[in-house]
């Protein structure tokens, strides 16, 4: 778990995206993008549809390999690292289109996340060693705490597919948090939410940050991003066009031109 936040500028970078380019065939999904995420902050990653936000997530979590450039997490380069190792190292994510384990209960979904840091294998399970018992008990306790934390505490034994849409989104956050990440990446967690739900989600994200996590937030909803983030990085057509505090971003002409100024596109 990261340290409690100190003065913003003295924080060290937890994740450094260094001149990353990804090409699919001839198309550059990301073009020399650089930014970093400081420990304990909420960084917003915004941009119009197709700007490369989710691609950026995917390269950070090992789903894609960067064509060039480097991503360092806690000082370690992530290139060629297996996806589950990256998770173990401390980057966890949610998905833009919900990807829970549908026929498992909410509790079990979170337990799968908690297992990421577990050292128990087949042998320990088969012989019910003290290590297995202890790990299992701790995981279950932690899982219930996380379910409570995100607000689906009463639904631990429901199958994930039977939860309401909003609860499924919250469950995804709990599952990601269970992997004990240093960096929590939320991919459009408010997609499909009504204003009241969005407000509750903003509170939850702040609560997550106050708990000591660093958060990277991809979001479409400008009000949510402006309300909750410490800093914002703006992408357009795979390039970074701006970076700064929410207030600076709001007044940045390039951003307004690319994103904020066009109501129709914003709505899409």
């Amino acid at each position, binding site marked *: 778990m990261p340290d409690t936040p100190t003065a913003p500028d003295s924080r060290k970078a937890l994740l450094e995206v260094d001149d990353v380019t990804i090409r699919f065939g001839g198309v550059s999904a990301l073009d020399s993008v650089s930014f970093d995420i400081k420990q304990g902050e909420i960084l917003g990653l915004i941009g119009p549809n197709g700007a490369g936000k989710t691609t950026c997530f995917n390269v950070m*979590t*090992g*789903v894609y390999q960067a064509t060039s450039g480097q991503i360092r997490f806690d000082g370690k380069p992530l290139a060629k690292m*297996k*996806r*589950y190792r990256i*998770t*173990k190292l401390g980057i*966890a*994510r949610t*998905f833009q289109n919900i*990807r*829970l*384990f*549908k*026929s*498992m*209960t909410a*509790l*079990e979904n979170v*337990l*799968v*996340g908690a*297992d*990421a*840091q*577990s050292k*128990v*294998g*087949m042998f*320990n*399970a*088969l012989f*019910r060693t003290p290590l*297995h018992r202890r*790990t*299992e*008990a701790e995981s*279950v*306790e932690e899982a*219930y705490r996380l379910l409570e934390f995100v607000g689906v505490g009463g639904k*631990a*034994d429901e*199958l994930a*597919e039977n939860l309401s849409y909003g609860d499924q989104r919250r469950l995804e956050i709990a*599952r*990601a948090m269970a*992997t004990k990440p240093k960096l929590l990446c939320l991919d459009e967690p408010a997609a499909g939410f009504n204003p009241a739900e969005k407000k509750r989600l903003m509170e939850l994200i702040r609560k997550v940050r106050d708990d000591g996590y660093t958060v990277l937030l991809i979001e479409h909803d400008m009000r949510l991003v402006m309300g909750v983030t410490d800093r914002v990085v703006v992408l357009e057509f795979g390039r970074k066009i701006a970076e700064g505090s929410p207030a600076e971003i709001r007044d940045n002409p390039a951003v307004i031109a690319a994103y904020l100024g066009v109501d129709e596109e914003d709505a899409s």
Partner: protein
Amino acid sequence: MSTTAPASARSSRGLGRPLQVQLPPFLRSRSARFLMVALGILVAYALPLLQPPFITTPASDFGGVMVTAGSYALVAVGLNIVIGYAGLLDLGYVGFYATGAYTTGVLTSQHAHWPFFLVLPLALVVTTVSGLLLGAPAIRVRGDYLAIVTLGFGEIITQVAKNTPWLGKAAGIKNIPPPPSIGPDEIGTDQDGIFQIPHLSWNGLVPSIDDAHKTPFLTFGVLDAIPYYWLILTIIIVVLIADILIKDSRVGRAWEATREDEDAAELMGVPTFRYKLLAFATGAAIGGVAGSMLAAGQGGFISPDVFPLQLSMLFVAAVLIGGAGNRWGALAGGVLVAYLPERFRTLSDWRLLIFGLSLMVIVTFRPQGILPPRRTRRALRAQAEIEEIEGDTVDA
């Protein structure tokens, strides 16, 4: 058999859930449940001795049918780990069954004369290794492709056996010794075994003790199949306990998560390749044990014809009919596919039609299987666990 079968069985699994009933009050206490389990096990062991009317097979030796049923049930429980838990469609499972059988045949009769209980664990090791060797490349492909690769494996094994002089070619391996008997073992005398257990015979619904038919304890001979059944039932129980312990752990959750969404599982820290390989090898090992016992069975004979590819399909059918993902369902499915054709043997050729029809009826009206996975039960256990933890913290 198409790969959509397990997927559809899975997606409609929810249908089975409303059928879950609350345990009746007399079963809620721990000791009552223990007693019921003990009673169930006792009945399972005694079944071929009891020869209950309607259940017994009129045209075949009931003990022999029970051995086959046990063998298929064990195979189905093993295959359930691969198909039901990890979601890997393995159409070549008969390959592992054959590998276990041939390992036993070669080491106890063909090329060496090692005792069965030394060879059984060796067969397990050999099939585990063959599972790893096949799995490591095969598991990299998904879904339909995996089914084709495993299908090929099942066929390769029988072809290799058919063409290798060292494995007896098409004639197979004969005179495989049975497991060692305990107590005297002389055919035709009444003094076999440590003691002898009389069977029941039924006149309508009236049972009487049949002193003419006795099963020696524990003689593995050619006359009585029941001791073989006891051995296989014992192994099934051990495997089921292991299955329960593994499923209810990180390993079982990893399998399930991988089956549900492989990429999401990987991103939640599950080394999916490793766990899929583990499921594949564990399933192979159980298939190998079943094969080993088949080789050292009453007939003491195996040949490539004993392991047709069709048997793989039957095994997959057993798992799907029983309920992929539920060990008790797989167990029931295995018993059913072995038992049904024998039960209706008196109807001669019609029996296979009845068998096929009953499979179709089951799949049509209960696509999720006879016993679909019960998730509520696990949820209740998790609840009990957390109560236990909370109790502990109060104590401390």
